[in-house]
């Protein structure tokens, strides 16, 4: 509870601060608060989502100029201009996001640099925005009839806003949508397979980050009472990113730490460096640049984790509360065909990886797909699950053609999978990792999450995840970070995650690889139980002992084609299979 005490002490210090501190420090704290609001958006975008933007200063400017223009020229109430600013910002962010986020991760930052520069020059050259002199006479804010005229009064508004969005951001991250956002950093493949609409998640965090920046700009305009283009230049956009990275880009409190450090350091350096160098200029950027390089080389997580290490958390383990179970999908009748692949062919350029493959899986059976390396098993898997669709042929799932659907839409229909190379989020707990699997079984969005109005649904999702973890025999590891588990257990976590989606077909890619003998037995028992419950299971596996002891039917592939199909013992005696596995030249 040490951390809680520090938090309360911090808030108490914030509350009494302006009563004790001289004007200069109150102003400094005001700026730290304004910067931290912007940096918080970058934490969400960069630290959590793995994207970045250098154009946040331009969004700040959008918020500031919208209110400055509308309040001074048209006399609109500042509270209405806030809404107008947020609406314009959201529109710009949605547009920029939708044209850059489909492509590789580096297009967004490059796009934001260009946009930041354009907007800066636009502010400086448009006459009705006052050109380089800007707009003066922005009215003070009034709250319940009380005018916030001095910095001391404004201070409380800034820090209240900051604390509220810190809280909202934390709430957002600790929710179904938050898990989907955090899953982005592990690559989109896994998230999509769990049904997450990853382009949407990316656009959401980019927009939220832009809205935070806009809010900061609105506050800035009414604190400063005038605006000009300089504070919204690209250099300031870069400084915001420095704040987030140095503070700790993956932690909400890192934004405040970083904003505080950089702002104070800048103040200090601007006093000292010109004296050292004997000339005036923005020499602090040299120190900031070197500091950034150093932090990214030596402590990529920034300074906040180092602060946290000073105050180790006590193990107050959250209990998963009992909750009403989630509704279950109606399972297909045992023995009915769940998956049918007909004449599936996959070409990569001139290379035929799968040639006219046929296979089917029924409810309540384990079908094993085996074959030598390079036979095309993974390609087949990707074709079925929609990761890399087949070139021609048909894939039917529960009677519906799915070969043209996206992975997340196939997941929605009740197919769930694991990955050959384990794709868990190593720093998240096993419980949270498994809960990602249940993503499609919740509906509440990020607004509900930020306001905490989705707690009933969240409890049911976590309860479901806990049930699946217990089912897979990992109850003792429920709260451990997934990355700390041995690889064999991580594979089982992947199965639990797939089960949390309530699938009727489970695709398992080499589930037994890296498992010890006893673990393999436990896995075999688990899969048998699932089969007995009516689950259809398709697995690719190299461990023949494991496959032959478990599978009901086996399909053998070679050169992208089906070589043999049948009961395990038939396949083991098949001379063509022996030939494929042992090879032979004559």
């Amino acid at each position, binding site marked *: 509870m040490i951390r809680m005490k520090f938090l309360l002490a911090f808030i108490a210090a914030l509350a009494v601060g302006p009563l004790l501190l001289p004007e200069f420090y109150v102003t400094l704290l005001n700026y730290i608060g304004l910067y931290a609001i912007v940096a918080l958006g970058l934490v969400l975008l960069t630290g959590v989502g793995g994207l970045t933007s250098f154009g946040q200063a331009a969004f700040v400017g959008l918020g500031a100029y919208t209110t400055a223009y509308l309040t001074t020229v048209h006399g609109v109430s500042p509270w209405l201009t806030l809404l107008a600013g947020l609406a314009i910002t959201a529109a710009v962010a949605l547009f920029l996001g939708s044209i850059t986020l489909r492509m590789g991760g580096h297009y967004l930052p490059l796009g934001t640099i260009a946009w930041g520069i354009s907007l800066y020059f636009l502010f400086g050259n448009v006459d009705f925005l006052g050109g380089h002199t800007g707009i003066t006479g922005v009215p003070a804010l009034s709250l319940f009839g009380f005018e916030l005229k001095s910095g001391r009064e404004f201070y409380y508004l800034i820090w209240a806003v900051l604390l509220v969005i810190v809280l909202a951001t934390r709430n957002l991250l600790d929710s179904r949508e938050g898990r989907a956002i955090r899953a982005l950093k592990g690559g989109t493949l896994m998230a999509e397979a769990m049904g997450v609409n990853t382009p949407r998640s990316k656009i959401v965090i980019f927009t939220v980050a832009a809205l935070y920046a806009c809010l900061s700009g609105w506050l800035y305009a009414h604190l400063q009472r005038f605006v000009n283009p300089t504070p919204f230049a690209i250099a300031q956009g870069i400084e915001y990113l420095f704040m987030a990275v140095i503070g700790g880009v993956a932690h909400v409190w890192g934004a405040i730490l970083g904003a505080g450090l950089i702002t104070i350091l800048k103040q200090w350096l601007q006093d000292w460096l010109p004296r050292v160098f004997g000339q005036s200029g923005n020499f602090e950027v040299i120190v900031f640049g070197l500091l950034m390089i150093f932090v990214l080389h030596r402590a990529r997580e920034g300074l906040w984790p180092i602060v946290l290490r000073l105050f180790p958390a006590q193990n107050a383990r959250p209990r998963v509360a009992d909750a009403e179970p989630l509704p279950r999908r109606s399972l297909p009748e045992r023995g009915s065909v769940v998956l049918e692949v007909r004449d599936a062919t996959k070409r990569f350029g*001139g*290379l035929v990886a799968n040639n006219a493959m046929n296979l089917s899986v029924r409810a309540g059976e384990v079908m094993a797909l085996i074959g*030598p*390396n*390079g036979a095309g098993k993974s390609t087949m898997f990707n074709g079925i699950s929609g990761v890399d669709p087949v070139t021609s042929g048909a894939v039917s799932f529960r009677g519906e053609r799915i070969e043209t659907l996206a992975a997340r839409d196939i997941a929605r229909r009740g197919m769930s999978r694991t990955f050959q190379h384990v794709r868990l989020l190593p720093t998240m707990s096993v419980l949270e990792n498994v809960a990602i699997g249940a993503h499609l079984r919740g509906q509440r969005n990020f607004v509900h999450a930020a306001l905490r109005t989705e707690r009933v649904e969240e409890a049911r999702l976590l309860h479901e995840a806990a049930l699946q973890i217990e089912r897979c025999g990992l109850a003792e590891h429920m709260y451990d970070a997934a990355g700390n588990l*041995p*690889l*064999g257990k991580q594979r089982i976590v992947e199965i639990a995650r797939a089960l949390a989606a309530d699938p009727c077909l489970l695709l398992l890619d*080499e589930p037994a*690889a*890296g498992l010890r*003998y006893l673990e393999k037995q436990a896995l075999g028992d688990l899969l048998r139980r699932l089969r007995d419950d009516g689950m259809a299971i398709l697995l690719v596996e*190299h*461990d*023949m*002992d*494991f*496959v*032959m*002891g478990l599978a009901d039917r086996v399909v053998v592939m070679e*050169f992208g084609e089906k070589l043999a199909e049948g009961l395990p013992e038939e396949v*083991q005696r098949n001379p063509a*299979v*022996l030939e494929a*596995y*042992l*090879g*032979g*030249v004559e």
Partner: protein
Amino acid sequence: MTAMNAMNASNESSAERERGTRPVVLDVRDLSVSYGKVEALHHIDLKIRRGEIVTVIGPNGAGKTTLLAALMGLLPAQGEIVYLGERQGAERQVEQLVRQGMTLVPEKRELFGEMSVEDNLLLGAFDRYRGGHRDELETMDQVFEIFPRLAERREQLAGTLSGGERQMLAMGRALMAKPKLLMLDEPSLGLAPLIIKEIFRIVAELKKTGVAILLVEQNARAALQVADYGYVLETGEVSLEGPSAELASDPRVIESYLGLGGKGGAAAR
């Protein structure tokens, strides 16, 4: 377990006698590799002499590619690796090993797809060129003699070659470095039987040039036919070793591939 060890020991001594006193190129003792907390290779011992083909066979996922990656310095490993009589330090780098004549033809071939066959070969001699040697054109002629198919396609882009030609190019490119140890990872992968036959004929030919060859294969029969000595790798451990002829007729080789042994296979773990 004990019976098996005794068997291995007797194999080893008879093999040692046969393998004679040619200089040892690579001597690996007690090599282990871990991915995170999982040990992918456990205590591997392996020896290759000059002008000898040694094969490592084993089912998919046994750790064969991991073994080559560790030997080539692509993965950190524990244990002792003595190459050309010199004990390798912990910070072994791929580039340094290439300079010392170790080459790997990887499973995925890793060709430069948008470059011509000739340029791919030329880059095989990059390190020698950098070291001041200027014999790359002669070496290329020798490679073309070994792989006449490549000479016919010298202007063609590597990305447009067939599977067999790609493997030939990958091998040719490795030979451009005039290696002392040539490591081949699954050269038969994804190739049609006739091409596999051709590739293995060439591997057998190469042996005569004195290069030591470490051949990692899933295609056990073909590999054992050309090799002098073999190791069977199973779930990260050497479960059997011996002269190729003996291994080829050993029923346990078949067991480990198809899991026919059931209990036997499990006990070996």
